[in-house]
């Protein structure tokens, strides 16, 4: 009876996962989708605790289980609540790592279980008692879980600035060799003498851990969102292995769902930046492109003074602000909102033009501006914005670069060629704020800066905005 009810719970949970993910991919229903999936998850967890039967007897150690859930829940809630919006990807990476570690630990303990069972039967190797399929599930869970754990920690480290990009010659070959080693150790474990197997299993896990580190190390820090998404789908597969292990459909379906959707999401993220997954993973993009930037001829550009910029904006009718990665770096979102309010008070029509991959994670700008309480209605999506530029007097580009680079439309040899951009050239004037003439993420020169209608306003975004506000106030 109880165990039958649990099955129904699991089916319900699987359905909420599917529905939740579906709703998460639509702005209107996303939040509800997240809650629905969370509800299904709660059902599955509570059901497991109280209704699961292991060989006919209910689970014990309930006290420990509740304590673990309490501690984990507390840590999870606190960190998730306290984290700064702009540090979201790091956070997701850490959470993902925890999931990977959890999956790896489960498989590890099941291995120990098998090991004991084999030993008490007096068998000399695993293959005696254990089906290849079952061992495969366990070892896959350990390897993928561990890789995901190690990789996520490195990705977190890179995003939070604790780990530097490390590139050396022959890196990719080393990585492939390492992967081969992991697989060899896994196979050896299955076939060798029982006691040796015990050691080699841990060697397999250890090698997988190092492989996870090596896998993420060469990839550029800015590409971490893509890597996190990929590791996310890895953890999904590791969770699915757990589902096979316990013949548990909730784990199986949830894991596979995330594995499949995560893989597609990873590919879509790459596409939004006009790159291939392979290109991201090999991590050569930034390197090769920045050299080409140096080769490009520098045209002549003109600067604008703070007071002139303040004047132009205060006396125009319509201003569109294009935020980019620089705004996030300078943490200038509050100053930006301030400027927007001030201009609006003066009767200027101010809106934001949001490029989907501005910044370093999808939706970065939405989150950033929302943090500063900018009204959602003022945010124009790329298509809308491109329609409004021709009727715009001033475009203020704040620390954005690639997302307004006309090379994406005009220069087929450019690495960003084909990426949709914000057509700021269509506006009457364009004021670009950044600290120097240095290129952005893609490492390429931007012809926009050298156009007659464009003026540069150098300086850190936050300082410049504060000064602009000061100037406009005294106008």
């Amino acid at each position, binding site marked *: 009876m109880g165990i039958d009810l649990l099955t129904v719970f699991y089916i319900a949970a699987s359905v909420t996962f599917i529905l939740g*993910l579906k709703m998460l991919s639509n702005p209107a229903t996303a939040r509800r989708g997240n809650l629905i999936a969370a509800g299904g998850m709660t059902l599955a967890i509570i059901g497991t605790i109280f209704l699961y039967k292991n060989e006919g007897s209910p689970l014990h150690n309930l006290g420990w289980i509740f304590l673990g859930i309490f501690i984990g829940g507390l840590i999870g809630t606190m960190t998730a609540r306290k984290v700064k919006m702009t540090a979201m990807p790091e956070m997701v990476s850490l959470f993902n790592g925890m999931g990977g570690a959890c999956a790896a630990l489960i498989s590890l303990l099941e291995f120990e279980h098998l090991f004991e069972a084999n030993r008490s039967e007096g068998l000399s190797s695993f293959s005696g008692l254990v089906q290849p399929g079952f061992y495969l599930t366990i070892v896959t869970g350990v390897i993928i879980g561990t890789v995901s754990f190690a990789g996520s920690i490195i990705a977190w480290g890179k995003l939070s600035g604790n780990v530097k990009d490390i590139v050396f010659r022959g890196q990719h070959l080393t990585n492939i060799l390492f992967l081969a080693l992991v697989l060899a150790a896994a196979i050896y474990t299955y076939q060798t003498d029982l006691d040796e197997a015990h050691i080699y299993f841990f060697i397999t896990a250890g090698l997988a851990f190092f492989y996870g580190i090596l896998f993420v190390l060469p990839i550029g820090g800015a590409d971490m969102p893509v890597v996190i998404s990929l590791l996310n789908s890895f953890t999904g597969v590791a*969770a699915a292995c757990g589902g096979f292990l316990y013949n548990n459909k909730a784990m199986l379906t949830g894991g596979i769902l995330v594995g499949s959707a995560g*893989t597609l999401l990873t590919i879509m993220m790459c596409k939004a930046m006009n790159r291939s997954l392979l290109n991201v993973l090999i991590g050569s993009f930034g390197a090769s492109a920045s050299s080409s930037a140096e080769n490009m001829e520098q045209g002549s550009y003109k600067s604008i003074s703070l007071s002139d910029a303040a004047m132009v904006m205060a006396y125009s009718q319509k201003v569109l602000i294009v935020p980019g990665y620089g705004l996030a770096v300078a943490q200038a979102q509050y100053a930006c909102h301030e400027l927007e309010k001030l201009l609006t008070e003066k009767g200027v029509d101010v809106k934001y033009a949001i490029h989907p991959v501005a910044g370093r994670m999808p*939706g970065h700008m939405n989150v950033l501006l929302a943090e500063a309480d900018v009204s959602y209605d003022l945010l124009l999506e790329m298509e809308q914005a491109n329609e409004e530029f021709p009727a715009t007097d001033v475009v203020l580009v704040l620390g954005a670069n690639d997302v307004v680079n006309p090379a994406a439309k005009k220069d087929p040899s450019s690495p960003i060629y084909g990426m949709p951009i914000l057509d700021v050239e269509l506006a009457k004037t364009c004021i670009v704020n950044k600290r120097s003439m240095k290129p952005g993420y893609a490492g390429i020169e931007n012809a926009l800066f050298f156009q007659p209608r464009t003026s540069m306003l150098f300086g850190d975004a936050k300082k410049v905005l504060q000064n602009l506000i000061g100037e406009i106030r005294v106008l």
Partner: protein
Amino acid sequence: MSQILHWVSDNQQILYIVILMIFLGVEVIGRVPAVLHTPLMSGANAIHGVVIIGAIIVMGKADQGNFLALGLGFLAVILGTINVVGGFVVTDRMLEMFKKKT
């Protein structure tokens, strides 16, 4: 070869579930706009936290005296819960930011 076929045949229902789930994963998020990539990733991240169920089972069937299983199982439960709870909470916070403020 015939062994593999036999295995497929024995596990056909599970295989069906896996295959259909793969299709569904792809279909279900196929239309997501770029701004929602991050919350979607985060939501999916919370969903694979379902691995916590495995941790609970491991923990719940461990013998009182088996400290390795108890210790690591306990750790697994904590880690899994962080994944689930943190994942859903962080996704909700993110999505709150995307909401129209009316």
